């Protein structure tokens, strides 16, 4: 025992001395220093991988150690990283350590060394550092190749907002190299003579295919670059949930969040891990995954969903009981059986979920705008009876189910439609009639309204009409009107009829609607009242009837201006005395007529009241067509009898007559009015709308007026259109017309008579050759009882001399040649050989004949003997008349005597005295003068008669006169 104590003391001293020694001597190598250092690189991840081992460990010995690692860049003295790496070292273990460089490893040399220390409580005395290992050099540039330019890092994947360092390595130091980020030049930092680096801070996502970064040699075609893949930050999956439909498969879903915006190969992946079973699956889809439930019926599941890409990992967790996450499949095979008019039975099947699960199913029924809901417990098959359905109605039923024991979610709906069967119509059709009398018959137009769907209970096929003669009840008539007609017309005699109308569908007949039509059309003169309508309709009221009525009917036409006026009616109860009639067809400016009937207990309708009105009155749009009549100098009458007041857009209250005049003064009864164009006129107001004539009086003769007749209503008057113009006539014109017209007529009549009797008149009044024997001169002479005065015969004349002019025999000249023919004259010459001056003498004008004249048998006139004194002959006519007569005969010879037939025309001519007052001639008979003369009567030669112009004829006449004036 003493020996043991001595040995123990000796060991402790030895140990103490050894520790002291170790403390004092630092440089002594540690027995567990890192050895076999190997350095490798991962260019893609820019990582340096270091591996080493610790020798001298005993078998199964574990020692906790600390390794200090130093990293230098470019040169060993430039230490850029120092890290203590603690780990438990085992015997014969190869240790690993990685370091990620911000600068691509290809762009600079890196140096690495390490040392170790024991950090184990079991060997506290060993806690001091070993010696540094030698520097390990990492130089990738040597293995790059011989290309002129390199850019690093290649295809780096970073998150949006990260900082990235880009660098290039050039093989030539003389080249100027520019680097660009998406076309924008970057400013870099030179690491060495041919290496530069560029720090990119907070890089942004640009496109799915990455960001292009490239460097170019300025004087050359060399371009090198890298693609930097920038990812959006991977989000944590949201709404992670799992459920089952059949307890065999779990369907897990989640919202992956926003897309990282990377190519598919760089995108994130999703894994599902269940901790109780330890199973893990890689999901094929981004938002859902299927998990097969273990056959041993694991009830509780603890899932971890992990989203992971090269940069980040995100996980969410879910713990649940399988039976609480049952989401049944939608029911199927939904059918309807025993479908009647009011009932139907619905059946369906559900997918089984285990053997002991009961489902709660919800059944909804939609129909006729209503929804009914029912809940039914179902194990395998479901069934439900719908009652109280409407006939001939389509319904939609839907069913869904959920786990009855532990509700999680309803299944999807399964829908099915069905239609109930038809039933006989439940209501009688609403019938009304319109009665007209035509040619002794009663034309009854029956109207009925289509039954509502709830009343028809099916499709109405036809309407039956039974017309029963109440006077002779045995006779009835049946009409069948096919649907969808809503009326028919029947012609009845003046008897009393009862009409039954029923609607029929494929199942049966409705109750009958009965209406009594009397032979009397019932056009009772009922006073029509006016009602004022509104946009909401017409409010009608009537007096309650003292006698019993079963109800009232109000009818009207929706379109009163159409021939088919679309008769409408409204049934009202017996206690009702007012109603509001509204219709979507009512339009402003249209007059609607309402008739109110009372229905007697015998079902006979009788007219009670008539109402008429407008839903909205509008001002008249047209003025009447006015006819003006009885226009006098002081008045005229206006009439517009064709103007219908019934068809106007409002009730006509009267008319305004506007009158414009230059005077501008209005007579009594008229008032001044200013028109819209500031024109001033007179206005007369006619209060009676039935008065359609008006006499405008007190007008001025020969004045201009304008008038206009326009109706006025409660909402205004008609348009002030064009005025009609009128001018009053002269005051005396009618009198003058009454005098002048008969005078003109008389003159005209006389003229016509004279024209018709012109020959007679000529002979009587102005013959070409006056017959002295026929002349009244003789009577005058006789009346004067002067025996000395007589008609001179030619044989009584003793010629003094006869001069015969030479004339060629047998030559007949044509009319044109007669111009050069000189007339043959027979001159009565005095016996004295000379004529020396005026002496008292009597000179007779001789007759001159040409040969043709002498031959003519038509010349029956006997030359007047020169017995009659010239003064007395001169009384017969005036020289002017003679000249006119000459000209007239001359012209007659042109027009009446054909050439060649007559060659001589005899003209009588009386000369007037050379001097003397014509007016004194009748009163102062001429006394024998020294020289008085007679104008000779002469024959006009044809040559002169055919003179082409009046001028020559006039000249011929003058010549004749000149010759006649010669004294022989």
């Amino acid at each position, binding site marked *: 025992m003493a020996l043991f104590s001595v040995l123990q003391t000796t060991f402790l001293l030895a140990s103490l001395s050894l520790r002291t020694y170790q403390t004092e001597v630092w440089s002594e190598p540690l027995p567990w220093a890192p050895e076999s250092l190997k350095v490798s690189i991962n260019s893609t991840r820019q990582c340096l991988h270091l591996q080493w081992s610790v020798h001298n460990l005993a078998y199964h010995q574990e020692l906790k150690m600390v390794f200090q690692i130093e990293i230098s860049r470019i040169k060993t003295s430039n230490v850029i990283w120092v890290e203590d790496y603690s780990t438990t070292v085992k015997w014969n273990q190869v240790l690993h350590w990685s370091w990620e460089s911000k600068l691509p490893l290809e762009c600079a040399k890196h140096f690495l060394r390490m040392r170790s220390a024991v950090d184990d409580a079991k060997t506290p005395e060993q806690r001091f550092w070993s010696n540094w290992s030698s520097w390990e050099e990492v130089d990738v540039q040597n293995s790059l190749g011989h290309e002129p330019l390199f850019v690093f890092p290649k*295809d780096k994947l970073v998150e949006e907002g990260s900082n990235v360092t880009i660098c290039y390595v050039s093989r030539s130091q003389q080249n100027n190299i520019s680097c*660009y980020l998406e076309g924008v030049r970057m400013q870099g930092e030179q690491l060495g003579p041919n290496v530069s680096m560029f720090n990119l801070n907070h890089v942004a996502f*640009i496109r*799915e*295919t*990455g960001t*292009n970064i490239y460097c170019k040699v300025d004087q050359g075609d060399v371009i*090198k670059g890298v693609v930097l893949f920038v990812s959006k930050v991977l989000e944590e999956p949201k709404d992670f949930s799992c459920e089952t439909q059949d307890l065999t498969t779990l369907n897990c879903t989640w919202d992956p969040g926003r897309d990282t915006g990377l190519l598919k190969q760089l995108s994130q992946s999703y894994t599902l891990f269940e901790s109780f079973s330890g199973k893990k699956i890689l999901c094929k889809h981004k938002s859902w995954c299927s998990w097969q439930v273990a056959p041993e019926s694991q009830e509780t599941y603890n899932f971890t969903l992990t989203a992971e890409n090269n940069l980040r990992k995100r996980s969410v967790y879910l713990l649940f009981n399988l039976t609480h996450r049952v989401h049944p499949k939608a029911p199927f095979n939904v059918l309807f059986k025993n479908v009647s008019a009011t009932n139907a039975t619905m059946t369906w099947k559900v997918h089984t979920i285990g053997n002991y699960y009961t489902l709660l199913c919800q059944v909804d029924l939609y129909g006729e705008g209503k929804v009914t809901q029912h809940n039914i417990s179902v194990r395998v098959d479901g069934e439900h009876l719908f009652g109280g359905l409407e006939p001939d109605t389509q319904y939609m039923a839907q069913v869904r189910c959920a786990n009855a024991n532990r509700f999680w979610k309803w299944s999807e709906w399964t829908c099915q439609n069905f239609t109930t069967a038809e039933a006989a119509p439940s209501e009688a059709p609403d019938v009304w009639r319109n009665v007209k009398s035509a040619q002794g018959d009663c034309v009854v137009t029956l109207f009925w309204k289509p039954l509502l769907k709830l009343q028809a209970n099916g499709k109405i096929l036809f309407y039956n009409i039974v017309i029963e003669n109440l006077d002779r009840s045995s006779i009835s008539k049946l009409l069948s009107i096919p649907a969808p007609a809503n009326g028919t017309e029947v012609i009845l005699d003046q008897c009393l009829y009862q009409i039954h109308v029923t609607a029929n569908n494929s199942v049966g007949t409705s109750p009958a609607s009965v209406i009594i039509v009397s032979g009397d059309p019932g056009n009772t003169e009922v006073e029509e009242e006016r009602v004022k309508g509104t946009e909401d309709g017409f409010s009608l009221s009537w007096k309650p009837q003292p006698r019993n009525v079963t109800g009232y009917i109000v009818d009207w036409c929706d379109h009163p201006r159409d021939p088919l006026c679309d008769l409408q009616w409204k049934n009202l109860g017996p206690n009702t005395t007012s109603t509001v009639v509204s219709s979507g067809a009512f339009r402003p400016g249209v007059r609607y007529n309402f008739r109110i009937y009372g229905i007697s207990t015998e079902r006979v309708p009788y007219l009670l009241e008539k109402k008429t009105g407008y839903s909205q009155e509008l001002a008249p749009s047209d003025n009447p067509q006015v006819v003006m009549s009885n226009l006098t100098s002081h008045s005229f009458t206006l009439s517009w009898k064709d103007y219908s007041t019934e068809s106007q857009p409002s009730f006509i209250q009267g008319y305004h007559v506007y009158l414009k005049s230059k005077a501008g003064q209005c007579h009594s009864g008229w008032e001044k009015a200013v028109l819209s164009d500031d024109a001033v006129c007179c206005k007369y107001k006619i209060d009676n709308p039935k008065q359609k004539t008006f006499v405008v009086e007190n007008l001025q003769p020969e004045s201009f007026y304008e008038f206009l007749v326009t109706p006025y209503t409660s909402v205004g008057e008609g348009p002030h259109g064009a005025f009609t113009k009128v001018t009053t006539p002269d005051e005396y014109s009618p009198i003058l017309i009454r005098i002048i017209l008969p005078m003109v007529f008389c003159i005209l009549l006389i003229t016509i008579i004279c024209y018709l009797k012109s020959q007679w008149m000529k002979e009587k009044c102005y013959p070409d050759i006056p017959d002295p024997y026929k002349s009244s001169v003789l009577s005058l002479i006789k009346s004067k009882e002067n025996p000395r005065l007589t008609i001179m015969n030619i044989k009584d004349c003793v010629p003094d001399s006869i001069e015969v002019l030479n004339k060629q025999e047998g030559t007949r000249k044509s009319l044109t040649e007669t111009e050069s023919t000189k007339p043959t004259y027979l001159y009565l010459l005095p016996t004295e050989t000379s004529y020396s001056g005026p002496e008292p003498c009597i000179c007779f004008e001789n007759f001159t004949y040409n040969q043709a004249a002498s031959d003519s048998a038509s010349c029956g006139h006997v030359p007047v003997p020169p017995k009659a004194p010239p003064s007395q002959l001169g009384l017969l006519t005036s020289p002017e008349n003679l000249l006119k007569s000459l000209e007239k005969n001359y012209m007659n010879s042109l027009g009446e005597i054909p050439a060649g037939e007559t060659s001589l025309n005899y003209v009588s001519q009386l000369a007037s005295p050379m001097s003397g007052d014509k007016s004194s001639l009748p009163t102062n008979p001429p006394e024998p003068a020294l020289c008085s003369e007679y104008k000779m009567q002469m024959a006009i030669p044809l040559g002169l008669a055919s003179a082409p112009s009046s001028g020559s004829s006039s000249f011929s006449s003058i010549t004749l006169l000149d010759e006649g004036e010669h004294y022989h």
Partner: protein
Amino acid sequence: LLSLQIKSQGLDKDGLKEHCRERPGAFPSKDALQRLSKREFLRTLHTMLGSILHRLTALQRDVPKAQDLETLNRAKQNIRGFRNNIHCMARLLPDSSETTEPTPAVPATSPSPTPTSDTFQRRLEGCRFLHGYHRFMHSVGQVFQEWGESPSRRRRHSPHGGLRKGVRRLQLSRRNKRLPPRGQLPR
């Protein structure tokens, strides 16, 4: 295809798009194609179209959008149809004709170098390839147009007239198969 590639890969930037040019020698020049006999021309065209199809298939890897991928597949379908027509035209040439013509100096290389793992370089190469492909098909169209417009040349090269018939059939076939019209060959 070219515009799609340039836009989707971000190559439409100044300083970068200038490098999206046809690599010299990747495709036969227009002059080289015009110097070829008809038989050689068709043979060369057939071979080039086969290479183009392979290259387009490789290009699919870098097309991220489904819409662009659909365009690429449609172009491939058109090239296949066109290549079939070229094959038929070549068969219509008389066997005895033009067999003695010398083989022209047309590069027998692949339209593009082997695709690299460097994404940026692969992107540029794809763009250059598409540029050359467009130019090449345009030249082919012009050569075909010259065949149709120059009877003397046609007679000189095809004394039996079989090729003219073939050209017409090709045009008809292209219309029927909804291939691009003349001068707008598959892109």
